[in-house]
C-alpha cells in the first residue's frame, strides 16, 4: 500500500492512498464504498471489501481521514495469542472503524489509534481539517513506536508511507516511496487537486499489479472523497 498525507498551499489537508494486496483480481470485484448512516445522516464513509466489516480506509466528514498500511513485524502466533488473551486488544481494522465512529476530531482520533492495544503492528496515516493536522503513526502492539507529524513550515508539506518504517530506507526490491516522493515534488504544493493526486497515485510503481483501489479524500472537503477500482 501507499498512503500520502499533505497540506496544500492554502493550508488544506489532503489524503490519498492505494490499497495493494494479494488476491488482487477478486478484491477489485468486491471493492465497495460504504456510507455508515445514523438517523439518515452519514456518520463516516469507508472504502472496503464486501464481507469485510472493519475499515482500513475511511473519512469522518469535517473531522479526519485515516488509512492503514501493513507493517510486517513480529510473529503471527503472537498476534492471535494477544487477540485471545487480551480482551482489550483490538483487531486493527476494527480499531480504525471504531475511531471513525467515535472520535470527533483529529487529535482524539490520533490518541485513540496510537494508544489502543492491537493484535498486530501497523501504520496509520491521518489527515485532519486544520493546518498541520497530518501524521503517520508507526504503531506497535501496545503503543506508538513513532508519531511523525506534518511540518509544512520546515518544508515537510507531505509525508509518504508505504509498508516500511519511514526512518529506514525501503528495500531495493520494493521501493514505492522514492517514486511517490518524486511525483509529489513534481506536482508541487500549489498544484494539489483531486486530479493531480490521482495522477501521483497512478505513477508506477506507486500503482502496481497488486493495486486494488485508489482513494483521494480531504476531511475539510468531504465531497472530494472518491475511489477508483484500478486495473493497471
Amino acid at each position, binding site marked *: 500500500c501507499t498512503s500520502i498525507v499533505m497540506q496544500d498551499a492554502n493550508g488544506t489537508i489532503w489524503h490519498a492512498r492505494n490499497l495493494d494486496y494479494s488476491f488482487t483480481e477478486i478484491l477489485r470485484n468486491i471493492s465497495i464504498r460504504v456510507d455508515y448512516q445514523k438517523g439518515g445522516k452519514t456518520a463516516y464513509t469507508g472504502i472496503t471489501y464486501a*464481507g469485510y466489516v472493519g475499515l482500513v480506509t475511511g473519512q469522518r466528514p469535517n473531522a479526519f481521514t485515516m488509512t492503514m498500511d501493513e507493517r510486517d513485524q513480529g510473529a503471527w502466533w503472537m498476534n492471535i495469542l494477544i487477540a*485471545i488473551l487480551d480482551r482489550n486488544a483490538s483487531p486493527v481494522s476494527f480499531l480504525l472503524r471504531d475511531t471513525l465512529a467515535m472520535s470527533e476530531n483529529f487529535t482524539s482520533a490520533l490518541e485513540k489509534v496510537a494508544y489502543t492495544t492491537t493484535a498486530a503492528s501497523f501504520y496509520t496515516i491521518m489527515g485532519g481539517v486544520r493546518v498541520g493536522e497530518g501524521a503517520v503513526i508507526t504503531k506497535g502492539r501496545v503503543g506508538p513506536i513513532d508519531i511523525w507529524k506534518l511540518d509544512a513550515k520546515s518544508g515537510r508539506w507531505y509525508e509518504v508511507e508505504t509498508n516500511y518504517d519511514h526512518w529506514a530506507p525501503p528495500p531495493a526490491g520494493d521501493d514505492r516511496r522514492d517514486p511517490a516522493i518524486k511525483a509529489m515534488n513534481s506536482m508541487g504544493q500549489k498544484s494539489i487537486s483531486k486530479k493531480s493526486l490521482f495522477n501521483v497515485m497512478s505513477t508506477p510503481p506507486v500503482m502496481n499489479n497488486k493495486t486494488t483501489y485508489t482513494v483521494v479524500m480531504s476531511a475539510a472537503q468531504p465531497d472530494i472523497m472518491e475511489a477508483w477500482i484500478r486495473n493497471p
Partner: protein
Amino acid sequence: DPVNPPAFVVNLDLPEEQRWTEVALKYKQLVPDIYAIMKQFLPDPTISLPLIRKIAADVDKYLAKPYAGEMRGIAKTLNMSLGDVVTCNLLYDISAF
C-alpha cells in the same frame, strides 16, 4: 479506465445482524470464493485455524460490538460458517508478521 466502486449504505440504526444484508446478497456469488482463497493464505493453518475457530466459537467474548453481530449476520445471509467469516475479517491481524 478506472471506475468508481459500487456505493452502499450501512444503516447503523438497524440491528447488527441486519446491517450487511444488502451487500451480502449482492455479492453472494463472489464472497464465499474469496473467503475460501484467503484461508489458503493463513500461516501454518494446522495451528492457526484451530485458534481462529476458538475465537469464532465465542465471538461475542473475543470481539467487541458491533463486529460479532455484523459477522454473524453476514454468515447467515451467505449460509457460511461464522468461522470462515471471522477468519477473513481477522486476516490482516493474522498475516501481518
